[in-house]
């Protein structure tokens, strides 16, 4: 008898939530039907800084269907202390509290909500609220804000921030280096621009409890915020985010529509839905603007002798958002003299936020442009130059990696791209009216793991349910949970249901940092292993006791609905037969995956990262400087891949966003009015179908049992890192024009 085929980890299972998504039955936050629900439309401030003097509501209240208007003047009580408003990210500073008082801290700040029987009435009435302001001088210009840049003191820094660690004497090494490169790089503000606008539907049950359907990357962080800030109490609040229409970091923190909808519901003791407009989506989270001075020194043979970086990113005046910018370049290459500094500059906007690969997408990308410049100065092939300076250890922390298959990624990517056929000179490849350029860059991101719980429940009809309060923001978490469960218990995916996106489920962190698959997967595996143990015990009652000498599930294989003695496939017990023999109708388990002692030691002694090598072909119209990205090959080293199909999609998405970062995405400030100018899909350009041609994704073999329990490193972010650098480097190779400020728009190319 052969062991049945395993269906689970490593198979390209189509998304288990696919049917719901393609038939339109998947429900997002603004789509739950709640009885007697009212619609809230938010009025936002027209000024960037100052205070509200009067709010004239008379005309708005006269619109038929308007029920009430809530603002700082009549809002329900909310918590005074900042700590009651902290979300899971715990950004240092004073969290924004909607309708707290008459102060205006940023443009398009929510100041009132009009609640009406219909959306249309609320929308119209919101335009009639007549607000008189007293303005104060503001600044949203990044250049100007640099005069106020600072480094928060210890205890006032983000808990994710890693201070740069200097080694050697970088200044001197740079000064003496025969090859030098020094330049300033810049990244514009970007907005996450998830397709689904932020929405909260508050179902007021009338018995002191509420269910909130929220657009957020973690149901439990919204629940905790609402429970503490509005005094509703933990046990009375349930938050659901079963489907999330994109996150990209923009929904890591509960957003202000949650405050507004909850206050309206409490005030009216009724169910209320509040949805941001697309324009209002620009009022909150965004990737910080960045300026980064890079100095690189190399010996005559091209070996790096000095890496120096000084960067500043933008934040608000009320919170200190921080990123790791300069560390990536210090970690990535072998170099004994490294030095870095970092600061943040406050301005009168909402606090900047995490956006896909926060820090690395900015810092590593800009650094990889600088490295390219040095490679040309050294007269070296840009890929060979990177391999010449390859580091087998984390060069800043001086720790070995749990695994690093970047060399393999470089080779496999180059091979597939045809890098060997590249003509080294810039402006030396052409077809028709287009100059052709080939660029390369390498990417670096973290392999994170977060404490996560999951439950599993096997019923006598053979159905398994696995559950965790994790989120699926398009990352494929539902599918990963099913695959890990299928793998562990040897069941078919069709007989498994995954539940997530509900604060009542076992504790899980927000979906971010690429830790979802590794952490939720590990928790599901543990819960299923506990089920397996219980099954083994129950199998003791099976006639003939085929497992009388089996003491651990490690001696068993789970496949095709059976537990099978390893090495002796004739000794097998059906899972349901075991349940029957043990007199069990249902088996339940709940487990928590955490790094554990071994994991903590490994965390302290080893670096854990994902790597990538990105190859880009750019075609640039010689006269118009219009750029097309015709080909991308990205080779990713990210440990074990649970699902090659959804994994590939994650990388594709990162690459597309990276192309947007390189060519299109920029939120421009109106310095006079203190607001973003281009607050719409029409004017904030993201890549469209026509912009995206060929993208090939390669996953490099990188077995790594040490990095996380499943050997998974995570994929949500590595796909974007350094893509924009490869694009800029390809444009340089095509045109001989080096642009150091992203995005590379036509005007910048024309100006070189």
């Amino acid at each position: 008898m052969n062991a049945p085929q395993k269906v689970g980890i490593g198979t390209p299972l189509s998304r288990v939530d696919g049917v719901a998504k393609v038939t339109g039955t998947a429900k997002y936050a603004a789509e739950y039907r709640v009885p007697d629900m009212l619609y809230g439309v938010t009025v936002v401030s027209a000024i960037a800084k100052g205070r509200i003097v009067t709010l004239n509501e008379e005309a708005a209240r006269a619109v038929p269907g308007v029920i009430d208007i809530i603002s700082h003047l009549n809002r329900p009580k909310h918590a005074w202390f900042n700590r009651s408003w902290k979300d899971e990210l715990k950004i240092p500073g004073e969290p924004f509290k909607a309708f707290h008082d008459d102060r205006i801290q940023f443009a398009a700040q929510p100041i009132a909500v009009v609640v009406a029987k219909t959306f249309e009435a609320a929308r119209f009435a919101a335009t009639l609220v007549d607000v008189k302001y007293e303005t104060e001088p503001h600044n949203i210009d990044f250049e100007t804000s640099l005069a106020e840049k600072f480094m928060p003191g210890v205890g006032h820094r983000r808990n994710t921030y890693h201070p740069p660690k200097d080694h050697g004497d970088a200044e001197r090494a740079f000064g003496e280096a025969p090859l030098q490169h020094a330049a300033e790089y810049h990244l514009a503000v970007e907005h996450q621009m998830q397709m689904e606008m932020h929405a909260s539907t508050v179902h007021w049950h009338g018995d002191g409890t509420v269910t909130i359907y929220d657009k957020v990357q973690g149901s439990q962080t919204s629940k905790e915020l609402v429970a503490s800030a509005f005094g509703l109490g933990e046990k009375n609040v349930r938050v659901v985010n079963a489907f999330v229409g994109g996150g990209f970091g923009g929904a890591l923190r509960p957003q202000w529509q949650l405050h507004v909808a909850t206050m309206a519901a409490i005030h009216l003791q009724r169910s209320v839905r509040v949805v941001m407009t697309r324009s209002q989506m620009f009022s909150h989270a965004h990737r910080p603007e960045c300026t980064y001075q890079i100095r690189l020194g190399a010996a005559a043979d091209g070996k790096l002798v000095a890496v120096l970086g000084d960067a500043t990113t933008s934040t608000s005046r009320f919170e200190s958002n921080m990123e790791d910018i300069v560390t990536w370049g210090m970690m990535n290459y072998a170099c004994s003299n490294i030095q870095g500094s970092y600061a943040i500059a406050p301005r009168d906007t909402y606090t900047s936020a995490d956006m896909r690969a926060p820090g690395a997408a900015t810092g590593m990308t800009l650094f990889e442009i600088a490295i390219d410049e040095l490679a040309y100065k050294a007269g070296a092939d840009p890929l060979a130059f990177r391999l010449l300076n390859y580091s087998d250890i984390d060069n800043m922390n001086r720790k070995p990696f749990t695994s690093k298959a970047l060399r393999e990624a470089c080779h496999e990517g180059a091979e597939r791209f045809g890098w060997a056929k590249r003509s080294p000179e810039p402006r030396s490849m052409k077809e028709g009216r287009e100059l052709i350029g080939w660029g390369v860059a390498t990417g670096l991101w973290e392999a994170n793991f977060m404490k996560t719980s999951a439950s599993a429940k096997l019923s006598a009809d053979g159905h398994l349910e696995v559950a965790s309060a994790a989120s699926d923001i398009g990352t494929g978490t539902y599918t990963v949970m099913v695959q890990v469960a299928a793998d562990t218990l040897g069941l078919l995916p069709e007989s498994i249901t995954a539940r997530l996106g509900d604060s009542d489920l076992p504790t899980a962190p927000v979906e971010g940092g690429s830790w979802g698959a590794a952490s939720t997967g590990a928790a599901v595996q543990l819960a299923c292993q506990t089920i397996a143990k219980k099954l083994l015990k129950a199998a003791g009652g099976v006639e003939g006791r085929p497992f009388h000498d089996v003491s651990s599930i490690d001696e068993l294989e789970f496949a095709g609905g059976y537990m099978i003695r390893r090495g002796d496939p004739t000794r097998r017990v059906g899972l349901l037969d075991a349940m029957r023999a043990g007199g069990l109708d249902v088996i339940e388990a709940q487990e928590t995956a955490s790094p554990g002692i071994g994991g903590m030691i490994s965390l302290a002694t080893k670096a854990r990262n994902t790597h990538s090598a990105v190859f880009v072909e750019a075609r640039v119209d010689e006269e118009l400087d219009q750029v097309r990205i015709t080909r991308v090959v990205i080779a990713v080293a990210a440990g074990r891949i649970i699902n090659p199909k959804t994994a590939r999609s994650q990388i594709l998405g990162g690459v597309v966003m990276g192309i947007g970062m390189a060519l299109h995405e920029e939120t421009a400030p109106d310095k006079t009015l203190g607001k973003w100018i281009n607050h719409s899909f029409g004017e904030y350009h993201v890549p469209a179908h026509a912009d995206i041609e060929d993208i090939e994704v390669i996953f490099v073999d990188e077995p790594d049992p040490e990095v996380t329990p499943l050997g998974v490193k995570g994929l949500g972010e590595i796909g974007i890192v350094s893509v924009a650098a490869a694009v800029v480097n390809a444009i340089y190779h095509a045109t001989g024009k080096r642009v150091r400020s992203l995005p590379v728009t036509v005007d910048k190319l024309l100006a070189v």
Partner: protein
Amino acid sequence: MSQVFTPNSELQHLAGQPIAEIATTLTINGVERQLVIEPWTTLLDLLRDKLDLIGTKKGCDHGQCGACTVLIDGTRVNACLKLAVTLDGCEITTIEGLGQDGNLHPLQAAFIEHDAFQCGYCTPGQICSAQGLINEGRARTRLEVREQMSGNICRCGAYTNIADAVLEVLESMERA
């Protein structure tokens, strides 16, 4: 410093006016419906808020993203840009009408097979738009599909997979 802002002041006098209601007949996913609709209601809000057909998505409400794409008499249209009362007598097909669980439309099946979505929020619009593109009959090549699908933004960046899915259906129809 002090400033006064009076938004929409020219409309203040309309504040107390009653909202009219207009009898409108729409055939939605094959079912004829006699509706009484306020003239300021878009087709998108009618579908989502009044008829609970939430498969049609709102991504901008300004005709800039394509998430709300539906078929009106077989032509793809951004539902956020149409006032519902202007569609009296029209046939509207939404994602719910294209196919259902167990009876998937070939485009829906191809989208699943090619993993042509991640968060799924743009997906109903992409699929309706692809059906509209097929109805138009002008797209043959990948380049044409990409160009003619460019009104549908996918922030998750599933474009290459969407193009694969649409081309597969186009080609299978040509063979048939």
